[in-house]
């Protein structure tokens, strides 16, 4: 199961939201402008390339050059970056393999610890069985859509289109569309949980 373009876009938005809420981290990342950091997610056969910059840390699904450093980690290890660092430990988790510029890798991990991205939440849908992966995609799509519709249409359209508002869908209509999507998303999640349960049952029956 590979990450879809949409998932990359979603993960990029999420990471940048975390960054935006931490000016210290944002400034640190701006200093890494011009570096490419690869994160190879073990167990998924997927590498994410990160290009930090002054405005945005971009996430690329492919990169033709050689990254400045490569971090190899399982989603579990990445998830643990959110835990406070115990005393005497370095920023790089012990079970993370690092190649290339290790100083850069450590610096980057320090920032990742600081911004506390919930990697697991973003990656778990892709690490399960194929069916869970497909559902994960659907959830991701629904979430992206909902956030996008609400943020883009609500704020900006309101500003620009006040006079013409009667001709456009009303805010509550957009919100109800968003809620509809949210409900579908919840139902898909419930369905995923049920399928998982059934699969487990089936597994223990055999």
């Amino acid at each position, binding site marked *: 199961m590979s990450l879809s*373009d*949409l998932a*990359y*876009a979603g993960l990029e938005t999420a990471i940048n939201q975390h960054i935006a809420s931490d000016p210290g981290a944002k400034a640190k990342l*701006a200093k890494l*402008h*011009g*570096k*490419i950091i690869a994160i190879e997610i073990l167990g998924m056969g997927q590498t994410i390339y990160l*290009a*930090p*910059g*002054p*405005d*945005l840390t*971009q996430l*690329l*699904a*492919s*990169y*033709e*050059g050689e990254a400045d450093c490569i971090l190899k980690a399982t989603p579990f290890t990445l998830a643990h970056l959110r835990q406070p660092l115990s005393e005497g430990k370095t920023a790089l988790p012990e079970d993370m393999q690092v190649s290339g510029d290790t100083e850069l890798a450590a610096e980057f991990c320090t920032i990742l610890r600081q911004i506390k991205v919930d990697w697991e939440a973003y990656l778990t849908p892709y690490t399960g069985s194929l069916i869970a992966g497909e559902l994960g995609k659907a959830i991701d799509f629904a979430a992206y859509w909902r956030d*996008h519709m609400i943020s*883009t249409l609500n704020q*900006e*359209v309101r500003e*620009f*289109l006040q006079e*013409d508002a009667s*001709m*456009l869908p009303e805010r509550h209509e957009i919100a109800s569309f968003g809620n509809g999507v949210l409900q579908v998303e919840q139902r898909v999640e419930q369905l995923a949980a049920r399928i998982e349960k059934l699969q487990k049952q089936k597994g223990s029956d055999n």
Partner: protein
Amino acid sequence: MSEKGTTHFGYEQVKTEEKAERVRAVFDSVATKYDLMNDLMSLGIHRLWKRYAVELAGLRPGHKVLDLASGTGDLAARYSGIVGPDGLVTMTDINAAMLDQGRARMADRGLIGNVEYVQVNAEAIPFEDGTYDCVTIGFGLRNVTNKQKALDEMFRVLKPGGRALILEFSHPRGEPLKWAYDAYSFNLLPLIGKLVTNDEDSYRYLAESIRMHPDQEALRDMMQQSGFERCDYHNLTGGIVAVHRGYKL
């Protein structure tokens, strides 16, 4: 086929010299609300198309990239992030109002230092041969009067080994999609245009210019004619948009 000395302006035939002027007028009228329109028109999907194109550009830190018809600079901003302080992004547009908007937006985002701004007509690029690692034009080629000339120019300013990338509306594959897309772009799109910019005609022009643009195969042939090698294209969203890529070897 155009008659001699005339060219398409959407579905109208206009004198060749008139077209640039009229295209300019379209973008002058939409410049300030361009980003919002982009989001509404494509329901946000244009962001995914652009991300995809950026990956195909194969940029690396230190690269020099020329972005033609940059508009407000969505692509240029991403390039600037990747090429880093040692690279350079030349952000250009034929329209000064658009370029000003773009410059302001880039500065807002803190993208300074590795970006330069030049008013450029894609048909006559004012840079020397072999200057750039990558030349791109996103949703701009269909507005250019002499597309072959623009492709020749893109080829000329590339370094050997460099690549060109064209992101443009194209011709959707499959009848149902074509039908839905026509309904959308000829009815809904001008309506959105009217509501947001009070300028229905400009958006009707956009819809028409998309239909008049060469299809995937035709554009690839044109690239080859300009000297590009290893040309390929990737259809996005069922061919509503395509990314063409070619190398100067």
